[in-house]
């Protein structure tokens, strides 16, 4: 039993790194993702293409490859071109890669959130003399972000698990902690079971919380628009 507790304890040492890399990644992902979503939904064709290509490339390549390129490939190519470059800490490229990776998924979440905003409310805002910027700031984004909260929570859970690949890049997060301890103690089973338990105790409550949020939003916020639409559809029918 003691050796399993030890396994959990060792894995826990990597947890702060896992958590802050994930949090920074999703926060950065939201900022970049918002930009990508706006580009995708905007009028400019080139911007749309750039955004589409970015999203497809990020989603069709493994994050491990992206992380290896960023952490080792980039300094190498810079050095061979005479630029003296070295990451001060591997956590930095790790956060950058996770943020850029997450952005591709967040962009899709935000795009569908923006498109889920009631078009009637957008028209009403324009009819009151608002500019496009005001309509976005006052009506579209607040509602879209709210609609997206559960999906963004899921993205955080996914990112926490995904950061496990950073162990292979040399970032000492949960998996890497377990690996290092395994290398000196040869307690392979307790080491990795301990790591899995640590992910479980973080991710399980988080997903439950996301589920609750989703349920709460179904009960209030977004539903009155749906109800109005139902009313509206009913009125349309009775007209005919």
């Amino acid at each position: 039993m003691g050796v399993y507790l030890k396994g959990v304890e060792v894995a826990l040492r990597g947890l702060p790194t896992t958590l802050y890399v994930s949090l920074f990644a999703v926060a950065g992902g939201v900022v970049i993702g918002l930009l990508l979503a706006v580009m995708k939904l905007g009028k400019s064709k080139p911007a749309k293409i750039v955004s589409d290509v970015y999203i497809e490339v990020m989603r069709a390549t493994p994050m491990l490859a992206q992380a290896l390129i960023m952490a080792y490939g980039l300094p190498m190519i810079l050095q061979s071109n005479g630029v003296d470059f070295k990451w001060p800490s591997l956590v930095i490229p790790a956060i950058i890669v996770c943020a850029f990776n997450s952005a591709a998924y967040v962009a899709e979440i935000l795009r569908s959130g923006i498109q889920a905003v009631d078009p009637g409310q957008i028209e009403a805002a324009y009819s009151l003399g608002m500019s496009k910027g005001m309509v976005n700031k006052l009506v579209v984004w607040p509602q879209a972000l709210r609609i997206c909260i559960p999906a963004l929570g899921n993205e955080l859970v996914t990112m926490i698990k995904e950061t496990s690949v950073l162990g292979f890049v040399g970032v000492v997060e949960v998996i890497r902690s377990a690996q290092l301890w395994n290398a000196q103690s040869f307690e392979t089973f307790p080491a990795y079971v301990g790591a899995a338990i640590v992910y479980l105790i973080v991710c399980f409550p988080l997903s439950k919380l996301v589920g609750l949020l989703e349920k709460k939003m179904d009960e209030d916020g977004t539903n009155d628009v749906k109800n109005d639409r139902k009313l509206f559809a009913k009125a349309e029918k009775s007209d005919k």
Partner: protein
Amino acid sequence: MLEAKKIVKNFGALRAVNEVSATVSDGEVLCIIGPSGSGKSTFLRCMNHLEVPDGGTIVIDGEEVSEKNLTGVREKMAMVFQSFNLFSNMTVLGNITASPIHVKKMPKAEAEKKGMELLKLVGLEEKAHVKPRSLSGGQKQRVAIARALAMDPEIILFDEPTSALDPEMVGEVLDVMKKLAESGMTMVVVTHEMGFAKEVADDIIFMDAGTIVEEGSAEEIFGNPKTERLKQFLDKVLV
């Protein structure tokens, strides 16, 4: 004064509005009636360019509406929708003050004071701080009217403001609209409420298949319909 001159709007191959003209003088109430799909909403939405007309012009106070002066023009021309379209992320008072604060740059305190007065006018001051979702349909529509009034518009466009409401709530909304008409507000109202049109309209347009078939005062339209199409329509709606 609002003038619509030979407005044309196409949706693909469908000509929804075909060279429709209308004039609304200050203080006048124009009602637009007609069967479903006749182009009433589309014509109304062309007035504030929610639908950009494919032909013709809209002139308000001698100024032609274009992409350039659009936001300014919309400040003068508020709109009330069939499906209310209240902002679900804001409180009732927030709905009313959003545009005065952001578009008119009115100080927040002043906008809220005025918002409360408008809520009193529509009988809903006790609902100022709740979200629209907790209101009934009739209450939502009265808030939407207060929101429109908050911009001090010269004219208000109504697109079937009561047809998404349960029958027992229609009256409360029509009452507010009658009060507005009496106070001299210029209004264009697309409606299926023939009683309201009869009582309040200075001028009525009957549309069918994208064109104006008949136009006249309430007495002329209801008392002495000239065309067969209007007679048929009235027979159907005035049961």
